[in-house]
């Protein structure tokens, strides 16, 4: 079962995955930040419902969520159809579709930690910033964001890692097309399913190794520029 000599696995899926995870994390932060900020600030009654809905994508098995996304994003559907009309390309079985699916699926991992750390800031530093002439956007970027750095770290680590490992959704929506939508998780999965254990181990080790290095770098950076609480 643990063979020693095996053809070196194709690394295209790895780069594809890193691209997907990178792009997804960026989009997640862009989408998750205003949502989390709104949730942290609002006194609306809708808040609780929105909070719950944000967490719901997690509840469905990834493959099933993938299936629903497949239906939703397909050019036969309203949404997917509209996308195709505008861009000329289909959302499903494309890298863009993968990004959309990843973002949807990992959204809770971004929104929840961000919201928690925005809430922890409280209104005092924001009031101080306002009294110093900083408008809402200004103080959001110069006060709330740096003070919520720990939340951003958590959000990024969780969504990055989750996007790397994510698999069911991506497989369904992306269609496992080499070089386009065949990410490393699918590749490893396939190696396991087709008994290419040695290659699976190797790819897993590479994935774990790179992830470890990335995570250590992120955490170490966080340690170097901490916000001294109290």
């Amino acid at each position, binding site marked *: 079962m643990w063979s020693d000599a095996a053809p070196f696995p194709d690394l295209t899926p790895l780069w594809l995955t890193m691209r997907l995870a990178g792009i997804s994390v960026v989009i997640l932060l862009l989408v998750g930040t205003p949502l989390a900020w709104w949730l942290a600030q609002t006194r609306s009654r809708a808040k609780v419902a929105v909070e719950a809905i944000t967490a719901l994508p997690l509840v469905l098995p990834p493959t099933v969520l993938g299936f629903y996304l497949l239906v939703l994003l397909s050019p036969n559907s309203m949404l997917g159809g509209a996308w195709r009309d505008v861009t000329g390309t289909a959302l499903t079985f494309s890298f863009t579709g993968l990004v959309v699916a990843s973002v949807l699926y990992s959204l809770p991992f971004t929104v929840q930690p961000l919201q928690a750390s925005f809430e922890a800031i409280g209104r*005092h*530093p924001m*009031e*101080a*910033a*306002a*009294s*110093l*002439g*900083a*408008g*809402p956007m*200004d*103080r959001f970027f*110069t*006060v709330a964001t*740096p*003070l919520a*750095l720990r939340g951003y770290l958590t959000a990024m680590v969780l969504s990055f890692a989750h996007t790397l490992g994510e698999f069911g959704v991506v497989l369904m929506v992306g269609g496992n097309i080499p070089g386009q939508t065949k990410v490393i998780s699918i590749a490893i999965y396939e190696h396991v399913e087709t008994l290419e254990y040695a290659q699976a181990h190797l790819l897993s080790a590479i994935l774990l190794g790179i992830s470890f290095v990335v995570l250590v770098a992120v955490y170490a950076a966080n340690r170097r520029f901490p*916000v*001294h*609480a*109290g």
Partner: protein
Amino acid sequence: MSGLELDIALDLPGFRLEVSQSFAPTGLTAVFGPSGSGKSSLLRVIAGLEARAQGRVGFDGQLWQEPGRFVAPHRRAIGYVFQDARLFAHLTVAGNLAYAERRARRAGRAPDRPGIVAALGLEGLLTRRPSGLSGGEAQRVAMARALMTAPRLLLMDEPLSALDDAAKGAILPYIEAIRDGMQVPVIYVSHSVSEVARLAHHIVMLEAGQVRRAGPAQDILSDPAAAPAFGIRAAGSVLRAKVLAHHDDGLSELTVAGGRLLVPGFAAAIGAEVRVRIAAQDVILSRSRPEGLSALNVLEGELTDLRQGQGPGVMVRLRMGADQDVLARITQRSARALSLAPGQRCFAVIKSLSIAPLDVGGSGAV
């Protein structure tokens, strides 16, 4: 130029602030009142930080708040020293100051950075994080940061409470310079009578969310009826004086209605008008001009009224000239022994050195 106009109400659970009051367009207004009387809440309303506040706030001809209109706090060009320092934990001291300065400059105002840093003694602290500051250091940084906004209105909530007298002595002249030199109106919450007496042109006394008294500092500080609110020991009078001479032995000589005063030397041009505060309890009365005492200052006036307080004291008012009274707080026993009565001519003995350095200040715009 019109000053700050307030007509507001703020309901907090179990507390209601209701203030309808005009503030002078220049000079420093002290907001005075017991703990929990609503001083900080009042500043918050002025700054636009209390969304729950009802009513009108106007400043310098602009309406900051009225039903249906609300100018956001960052557009009010205020400087706010919070009661807690509220420094930005993610920035150094220099970063905190730069934060204020950058936005002030963007809005076309130019703070005096080196002057502020020097006045507050922050040279050695600039690279520190707020978490590495002592209580008093944090308070000084907070004050500097508010000054760095080069504000049009300065709100200060007990800015000197964590500081020792030496530090206060270094900072107060700077506040006076802002008050007078830059013509920035200051609203200053304090429970220190000596600070109020030195700095304030106007006083607003709050009690349980309501204005109890308001008016020129001189009137309120010398009004026996207001004394209990300040604590009886704070009662005193403020005399207008003119600088007559500065002597070699370190004393300055002033003319006031009723005579001359020798006070510890201070910097002011000959002929300048200054204010001198004389605490009522530092005055000794005599029916005849006393001789052979170390006290150098003796003023003569007419006893206009005696007012019996709670406890063993009597507040005696001597009229020195138009609008110029000296208050003396003496015991009933002494009043009886000297057979004091209105209409008598009396002498007030004042130890020169009991006129505190803090109590001699610029004349401002009362």
